[in-house]
């Protein structure tokens, strides 16, 4: 899951980033509202975790700007503004969820998964794909009931492909979902991960579309 974290407090931001990375998300972290808007313009995200009291551009304005531009990315507001009117305002301006600081990390992750699931139109987190079963909460994958140990980036790649099953994803889309900003991407590492996934699961799980990218075909 590719997440844009917008938080001006360095210590808190670092903690949230660590927690998200451990949950196998790729995180881009913006320290002020201006940088957040720039990041939203530059790339696609599965979720925005947004603080409201931000320098340069206020969090509410970031949210309004995103929604005004037609952006449908789920937004989870994480704020110290705790009064009901403030929460109502946040939700009415287009936030999909609203959490008050201090918050529970597990709950934050669960809500992030829930938003993701809703975005996909599914009722449960677990993605069933033919013989495969992927659980984003426990970060586990089974193939015909057999647990398959996957590396971190392999899991992230598979998750992204299964989420958009039937849809051809470009190399850069896949790389974005696996590597955060600043992670070194070697030119052939994506191919390496695809190769390993095919070997650990079964070869037809991912189909190469020449010159475009990869797709996980929906099971028959």
């Amino acid at each position, binding site marked *: 899951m590719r997440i844009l974290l917008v938080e001006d*407090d*360095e*210590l*808190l931001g*670092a*903690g*949230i980033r*660590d*927690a998200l990375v*451990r949950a196998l998300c790729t995180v881009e972290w913006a320290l*002020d509202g201006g940088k957040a808007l720039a990041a939203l313009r530059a790339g696609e995200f599965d979720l925005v975790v947004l603080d409201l009291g*931000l*320098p*340069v551009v206020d969090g509410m304005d970031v949210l309004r700007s995103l929604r005004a531009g037609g952006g449908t990315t789920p937004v989870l507001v*994480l704020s*110290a*503004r*705790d009064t009901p009117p403030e929460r109502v305002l946040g939700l009415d301006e287009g936030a999909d969820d609203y959490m*008050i*600081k*201090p*918050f*529970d*990390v*597990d709950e934050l992750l669960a809500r992030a998964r829930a938003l993701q699931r809703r975005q996909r139109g599914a009722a449960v987190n677990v993605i069933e794909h033919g013989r495969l079963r992927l659980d984003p909460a426990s970060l586990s994958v089974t193939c015909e009931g057999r647990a398959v140990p996957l590396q971190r980036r392999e899991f992230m790649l598979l998750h992204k492909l299964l989420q958009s099953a039937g849809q051809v994803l470009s190399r850069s889309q896949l790389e974005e979902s696996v590597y955060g900003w600043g992670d070194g991407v070697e030119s052939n590492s994506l191919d390496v991960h695809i190769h390993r996934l095919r070997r650990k699961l079964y070869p037809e799980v991912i189909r190469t579309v020449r010159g475009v990218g990869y797709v996980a075909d929906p099971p028959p």
Partner: protein
Amino acid sequence: MRVMPPRATSIRALLLAGTGIVLLGVLGPAAWLSYSGSEEEAQELFDARLATSARVLEALVARQVERATITSPIVMALPAPLEGDGHDQPTPLGHYYETKIAFQVRDASGRLLVRSASAHEEPFAPLEPGFSTRPIAQWSWRVFSLRSDGVWVQVAERDDVRDEMSRKIAFAAAAPLLAGIPLLLILVSLLIRYGLGPLSGLVRQVAARQPGSVAPIELARTPAEIAPLVEALNGLLERVRRALERERRFTADAAHELRTPLAALKVHAQNAVRAGSASERDASLQRMLLGLERSVHLAEQMLAYSRAAALGEGARAEQVALRPLLAQAIDVVQPLADERRAAVHLAEDRDAEPIMVRGERQKLLSLATNLIDNAVRYSPQGGRVEVTLSRNGEGASLAVADEGPGIPAGLRERVFESYYRIPGCGGTGSGLGLAIVKETAQAHGARVEVQDGPGGRGTRVVVRFPPNDSTMPAETNLERP
């Protein structure tokens, strides 16, 4: 030591007693004068009537009986029912009071010719013309003797009858004056009650107040005399309202400001618990420690701010030498300065006499520490913080300059608001440092100003203390404006 409440004096009782005394003092003598005047007039009138009846007797009777040969005196008898003491009701025959009026007619030699039944044989008084008062039998009588052409006419009236009547007349004249006193007192009492009505209203309003209700007092009618009291009370209520409002805001803000540091602590704690490796856990614990330090600093600053803003409670003003205080403050900030490789420099002392201000040592130290801490916090790596102390007329002037990013002109008031941090400054401060400086300065009657640093670079904060008057009592000096 117990303070005895002063004896309560009642305005109403004072006014009532005063009015009563004044009324008695004026109306009492007036009534007495009226009484005695009326009595005297009545006696004179009675005398005149006595004389007139003597003259009528003389004219109608005496001259007739003088020529007649009278061997034994003629007695003018009264109808039987009127004799003796009895009722005092008039009857168709006359009035029994007639026994209290008597006359005698004598010839020149003194022989009795005619007398009333109520008179005895002896002359009422020695035969000399004019008025006299004589005791006859057991009564005192008023007698008028008239002599004409060899006839003596003596007319007498019992004094007690005269006195009774004159007293009644005098009493009738004086009584209304005395009867007016209680009536007047009742009216005055009602007037006082009405006049003091707003005061009672004020008492009821103040007594009904809850600790938190600080709306101004409003009376239906406010007389000029208690308007200053109501005004002063409302002034006090307004100050209390503002203080309460500040406290309320401070508490709410504090709870709000704690959310982010607490959130950071919780996230890192949970990360440490779920860490996959020892190095990950250590990294999370290190960050937790940073967060704890920051929370501790914030809590300390909150405490310092609430103390600085406390309404001069327990204020112990003393003469404080500023230079040693500044040196102490620099020592406190030194570790942070070392961390940031900033140099804090206290300008040389060129003054022979130490520069003193009157105030609370602990609060002044907090002011200096926060000023220098703030300057160091926003200094660039290796920057220089210049602290200068100078005489400013009769007062003292303290300035701290840094080489930091400076404060835009538009924000030079806002930086003194509690929890205000300049956006994007990236500082790790609590947002309370300059607020503490301002509150403390105000409590000491000092003014704070933000200027450009030396050469237009950085920030210079100047605190100007008022003239140090060592005779000024602490309360005056520490009172907030």
